[in-house]
């Protein structure tokens, strides 16, 4: 089977790593001819993922000349290039509902929503995504294929290294610049702990984390280095607000660490509160700190959770098994008739209307703001305003402005409505 996976780039990220793993398994173990199609101009050299050597990597222009059996979009932006390829079947591999990565009212959010309405077959890695797709696109085929774990890298210990006396070893992982990763919140919860602990923060850019807040700040790390950090930890603390399949705690499980997490999408794929980890409430910083203190104090509970986490990890599929499910899924999609051109049309029309309404609302709000700000803008263009501004910034005038502050506040309120 000739398969194309469409990617924006081959830079280091969890999502790209998953696609490369599947592509590699399909090529090496199932004999498929797999091409990674890069839909954007590449600005940086690709990350050296394992197994890239077994795959063809092409730009979109070159790939247009090839007839594929199955073409798979792997990120919402790549769906816009999907139908430019000549393929028997079109698939969208959904790793998260990607509209949630963008603020409400942004164009990207609406665009990431509407790509789910196109007449394609879906493959997804998480049950919550499969359930959501079944609700919004009940007629669309949706196959469920979990991500595997590289068990040669996340090589579980035969026996748990039980630690009863040392400070609790906590690891926080993620990009602190990304709002939904909750890295700063997690570091704050650890800082508020009363019990002895040791915090390791793993991040791509150490300069973004207050070095004093952690015992160790490391990164970026390879998977193998990450596995060593997890093996040296008792707890993975992760307070993300958006996740697809929620891989990091699972990698920690493989190395014998339990987790403290928020109930983010994907957590229930494998985390069970009180069995292999602790699930804390949203925004409950104090509760999270208490959970960590509890684990630091109650080493019997910690050992119970860690032992069960390791057991959970043992039952998780390898990339070989996951690749077999992906091969079976693509085979089934190729065998079945394609969705009709009208599939999803109703949802597409509804989403377009919603996007139109949102845009109209945004434009209206902007016009209204402009109308209200008009007197203020006119005033700012006068010579008197410029003189006033110079006086406002003059050091000797500051006590006067302080006395006049209630008056200026009232005036500003009147001008801006």
């Amino acid at each position: 089977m000739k398969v194309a996976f469409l990617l924006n780039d081959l830079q280091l990220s969890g999502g790209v790593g998953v696609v490369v793993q599947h592509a590699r398994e399909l090529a090496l173990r199932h004999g498929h001819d797999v091409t990674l199609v890069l839909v954007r101009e590449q600005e940086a050299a690709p990350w050296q993922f394992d197994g890239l050597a077994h795959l063809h990597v092409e730009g979109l222009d070159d790939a247009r000349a090839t007839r594929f059996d199955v073409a798979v979009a792997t990120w919402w932006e790549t769906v816009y290039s999907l139908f430019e390829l000549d393929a028997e079947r079109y698939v969208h591999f959904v790793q998260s509902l990607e509209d949630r990565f963008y603020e409400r009212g942004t164009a990207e959010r609406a665009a990431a929503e509407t790509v789910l309405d196109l007449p394609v077959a879906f493959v997804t890695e998480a049950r919550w995504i499969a359930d959501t797709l079944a609700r919004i696109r009940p007629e669309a085929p949706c196959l469920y294929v979990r991500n595997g774990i590289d068990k040669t890298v996340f090589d579980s210990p035969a026996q748990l290294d039980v630690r009863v006396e040392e400070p609790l070893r906590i690891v926080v992982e993620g990009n602190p610049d990304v709002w939904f990763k909750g890295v700063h919140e997690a570091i704050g919860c650890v800082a508020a702990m009363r019990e002895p602990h040791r915090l390791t923060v793993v991040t791509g850019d150490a300069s973004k984390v207050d070095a004093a807040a952690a015992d160790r700040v490391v990164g970026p790390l390879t998977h193998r280095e990450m596995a060593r950090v997890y093996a040296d930890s008792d707890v993975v603390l992760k307070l993300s607000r958006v996740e697809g399949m929620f891989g990091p705690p699972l990698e920690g499980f493989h190395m014998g660490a339990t987790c403290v997490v928020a109930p983010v999408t994907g957590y229930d794929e494998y985390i069970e509160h009180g069995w292999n980890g602790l699930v804390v409430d949203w925004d409950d910083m104090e509760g999270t700190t208490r959970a960590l203190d509890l684990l630091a104090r109650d080493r019997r509970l910690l050992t119970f959770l860690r032992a069960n986490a390791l057991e959970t990890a043992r039952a998780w599929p390898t990339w070989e098994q996951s690749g077999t499910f992906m091969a079976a899924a693509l085979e089934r999609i190729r065998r079945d008739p394609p969705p009709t051109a009208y599939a999803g049309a109703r949802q597409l029309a509804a989403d377009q209307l919603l996007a139109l309404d949102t845009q109209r609302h945004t434009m209206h709000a902007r016009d209204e703001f402009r109308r209200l700000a008009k007197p203020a803008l006119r005033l700012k263009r006068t010579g008197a305003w410029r003189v006033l501004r110079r006086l406002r910034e003059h050091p000797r005038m500051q006590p006067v402005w302080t006395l006049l502050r209630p008056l200026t506040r009232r005036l500003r309120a009147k001008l801006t409505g």
Partner: protein
Amino acid sequence: MPDWHERITDDTRPSIRAEHALRYAVAAPLIRASARWCDLGCGSGLAAADALGDAAYEGRALLVDRAAETAERAAAAVPARDAVALAADLADADGVAAVRAALADGDGPLCVTCLETIHQLADFAPLVALLSELAAEPGCSVVLSVPNDAYWSLEREHAATSWGEGAVEELRSLLPADQRVLHQVALAGSALLPAGERAEGSASFALAPGVPSHVVVAFGAGVEQLCAPAPAAAVAQADVEAQRRWERQRESDLLHSAAAIAALERRLAACETAPAAAPAEVSDAPAAGGQA
């Protein structure tokens, strides 16, 4: 090493035999109603033979196993008038193609059983495709089962893949939508009877959702009959003496193997530390001319 876990033999623990036989018993009405029956990964055929009972199966049975002699043993064990053995590796596209070809040579309603087989295959994609393909044929029903790793604390050395709730969901998303899913749960119990007497026992018990030991997925024609209207259960009296013997044998085999490995390691260490003594240790080796 005794093949004690996956192949059902006369020495298999009674509870495991009962559990295997129950799956075949549930499929038996579908098998008997079909002109053709294909058992994929048939093993020794003992569980199927138990479930089908003494009455002969009038249709044609195709018994498929990786080992030719096992398939032949199964063909001899099942009470079918026309039983054919086929050796095929179901983890391989060629093996699956051989099954497809064997099934093409016949007509009439078909029942396919594939019980406790998929988890033993490193690549089950060709087999899953075949099962879906067969289920699309009119009058064809498929019954398959997989173990639930969350139930089995024992390491399953024959399993090539991991199976639990998630993997079953993945598998189900690949199969035709008209599925019937059954959870097989373990029973534990006890009975009292007058000493030295034989008796037929019967019991009524409540069943509730719990961690299944196995999941049975059936699809295709007539599968709504499975376990309808009541659940199916099988109880076998535990042969405590046989079970104790079985467990002791396993433990003593492990002890023996551990001791044998330790002895070999000692010999190896001795060879490494005293190279001069090495020729004496290998004095059983054939001479250069090929004679010991």
